[in-house]
């Protein structure tokens, strides 16, 4: 007896076979529904956005805002604090940099990116000097986890910003004040000189108009006679401005050094880790100065990287593998360029790389030799699976 004959003897078999026939006869037309799930996802996570520069305005001497509109007319929603990874092609090299959206998600007509010039910066120079109104750029959709959650952050927020780290926090401040959300924000913005502060006027006005927003500017290299708050954002300064820290959630965004300085200060004051949110670390300005860097490898050391299909490229010790690949014209998906989102993962077949301690590589990836190419610096010749 065959299995199907045997199964026909099961109690209820005929009834279910009949039910199946009916279900098929009046079945679902999946063909007519094709694509609807992909389209739903695309509303939130488009693979690429095409953006046109609609305005470009200076915020201060070395900072400019690019106001971007979507060429398709549609922008996915984002959470105040998220960034997009902006693609550029400069001198034939395709690369990208993440920039926080500084405008408020309360409106969806444009995304503002506020870009500060970095000395000798490859992309920031280009964006500030070359990009004109009307130019079209591509980016990823909004990404990142530096945002407010009503689930566990409470209503008492303290923002600690350094330099261009104000941008994601600005989006949050704009959202809360524009929409009259019931959250109190106290911003302490650290800069070296007062004229470096981005959005200073707007922050003053918003603070004046909204009792739930307080703005303190802290200047670390004041001119003689400067009357405002001075010094680095340390425990003393925070205590003086904020008072009691209990029940407050801190959002910290700034250069890498700021995290290694401010977060221990907060911990010293007894702020639990769950109440400290930080943006991704970015890349070290000089990776060879990282404590764990092997001294025998010099910054300008050059190695070769062999790819799966035999191609061989060169890579410097002080540049992330991702940069070396981009220089060679090889495209690797990437987003945060900080070692934390895992999008740029590649498999190392042989050789050694330096990975800053801030890279978030999963245990199984470490075990099977996967690295985040944006946070992996060659220490020897390499072979990678790509």
């Amino acid at each position, binding site marked *: *007896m065959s*299995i199907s004959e*045997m*199964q026909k*003897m*099961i*109690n*209820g*078999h005929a009834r*279910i*076979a009949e*039910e*199946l026939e009916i*279900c*098929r006869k009046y*079945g*679902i*037309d*999946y*063909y007519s*529904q*094709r*694509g*609807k*799930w*992909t389209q*739903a*996802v695309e*509303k*939130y*996570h488009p693979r690429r956005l095409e953006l046109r520069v609609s305005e470009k305005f200076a915020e201060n001497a070395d900072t400019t805002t690019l106001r971007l509109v979507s060429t398709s007319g549609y922008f*996915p*929603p984002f*959470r105040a604090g998220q960034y997009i990874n902006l693609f550029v092609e400069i001198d034939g090299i395709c690369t990208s940099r993440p920039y926080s959206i500084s405008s408020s998600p309360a409106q*969806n007509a444009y995304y503002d990116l506020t870009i500060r010039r970095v000395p000798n910066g490859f992309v920031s120079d280009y964006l500030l000097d070359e990009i004109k109104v009307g130019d079209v750029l591509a980016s990823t959709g909004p990404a990142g*986890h530096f945002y407010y*959650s*009503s*689930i*566990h952050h409470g209503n008492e927020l303290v923002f600690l910003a350094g330099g261009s780290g104000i941008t994601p926090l600005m989006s949050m401040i704009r959202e809360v004040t524009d929409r009259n959300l019931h959250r109190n924000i106290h911003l302490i913005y650290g800069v070296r000189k007062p004229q470096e502060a981005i959005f200073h006027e707007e922050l003053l006005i918003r603070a004046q108009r909204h009792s739930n927003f307080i703005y303190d500017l802290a200047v670390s290299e004041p001119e003689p006679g400067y009357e405002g708050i001075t010094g680095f954002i340390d425990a003393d300064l925070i205590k003086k401005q904020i008072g009691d820290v209990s029940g407050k959630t801190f959002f910290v965004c700034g250069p890498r050094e700021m995290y290694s300085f401010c977060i221990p200060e907060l911990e010293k004051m007894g702020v*639990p*880790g*769950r109440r400290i949110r930080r943006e991704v670390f970015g890349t070290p300005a000089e990776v060879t100065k990282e404590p764990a860097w092997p001294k025998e490898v010099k910054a300008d050391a050059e190695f070769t990287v062999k790819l799966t299909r035999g191609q061989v490229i060169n890579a410097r010790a002080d540049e992330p593998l991702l940069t070396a690949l981009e220089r060679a014209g090889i495209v690797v*998906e990437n987003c945060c360029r900080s070692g*934390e989102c*895992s*999008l740029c*993962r590649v498999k190392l077949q042989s050789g050694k790389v330096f990975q800053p301690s801030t890279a*978030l*590589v*999963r*245990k*199984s*990836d470490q*075990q*099977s030799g996967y690295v985040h190419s944006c946070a992996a610096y060659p220490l020897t010749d390499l072979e990678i699976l790509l």
Partner: protein
Amino acid sequence: MDYDVVVIGAGNGGLTAACSLAQRGVKTLLLERHNVPGGCATSFCRGRFEFEVALHQLSGLGPAEKPGPLRHTLSKLGVVDQLEWVEMDNLYRLLVRDDLDITLKADREAAIQTLQERFPAEKDNITAYFDLVYQFCIELITIYSSRDPEATPEKYPAYFEYALMDTQKVLDKFFTDPLLKLAVSIYWGYTGLPPAKQPFSDMAMLLFSYLELKPYHLKGGSQALSAAILEKFLQSGGEVRFNCGASKILVEDGRVTGVVTEHGETISTSYIISNASTISVYTEMIEPEHVPAEQLKKLGGSTIGPSSITLYIGLDCEPQEIGINETTNFLCASTDMEDAFTACWEIESHNDYTLVSCYNISDPDISPPGTSQVCIVDLKYGESWLNIPPHQYFELKEKVAGQILDRVEHYFPGFREHIEEIEVATPITHMRFLGTPGGAIYGFDQYAKDNNMFTPPRALIKGLYFAGAWAGMGGFQPTLTSGTTAARQVLKDIKRQAGVEI
């Protein structure tokens, strides 16, 4: 041909299919659109936590001295010994408001005893029910594994009587207390349909397999398993491409001829095993003129199963500090399982049954000392999430997460205060990462008619095979097994074709 076989998707089914083939010397290419293997069986990092995405309780493995079917499957691939398996002592703790708080051991006698102590009036029925579950499963296994040619209702009475009966009918036959019915059938959440809609064979096998072979987890989570299978595949000469989705399957004269990648590259092959859903394959990847009408009709007879709202949470305290003492906890607002199922269609979370897994109880290494990793799941159909206004998405998602956490807080006071990291995945999130219609996590709804008995995954197009949830049932054991089954069928056909040519 560029490759003998192209496997589309590196989820559980795709991985075991690809690995089995490569180990038999078949030239195999594995395509994955995401940048990591595993599909659901993966993990991701947030702060100091590495979150398990999908695996709660692995079924079918069994201890080394009493291997279950999954241990055999994984042993053949050579991945069992290098992985560190974590056996769980208990099935689950079930909390129903203030009416029931019961923890069942993963042991037949102990489970029966606990139930009898709590439900003394139904003492004998409890024994009888477990006897039936065991008799049924042993009959089923005997029939199918020994391929008994003389399988008759006289010889296997339980199987022929109950296999297609709905679970609710069996529960009603044995028990009266709704709390007791719930206590023995709460595992329905692992297949997606409540007892009134679920065939008894699914329920019985689930309970039997966890009782006999114990629930398992593994060190490093499901990602460790995915990584191990991928490594074996690569070591056996298999090739994999990440960030490389398949966009088209090429068919000529009713036979697979190749695949086109999302980057536009055409790869020729005579066999494709798809871990991508049958729905995507037949409605999007193959040109309509090559899809037999009969195939679309068959497809239309099944409905898309549930997705979920999943909360991935890192707590800054030990689980015991807030009263979590079991790995697996089910929280139920009522004994009305049909009501709970209706709630799966709603966006908000009011009457849902909620699964709260805290891995630290059985594996303290899953998160840093002094912390815990908790994964909370509410089954939700994806359909309702498709049409919400995008600008309301984040708010809605936090609202629903808040509703779920309010319930969790009721049973585990202090929970919310200890949240250090939280990620909320909606059906949209699952659609994004799994690429499944509706963000479904178990494939099609598993009514009796959707059983392989009535709906075998066989394709009408030659050279096309399926592995994974859409090829049968969802869940780890079924999908891992389905890959090796598909690989076996492909090998058989390759050999047959070679024989014909000679």
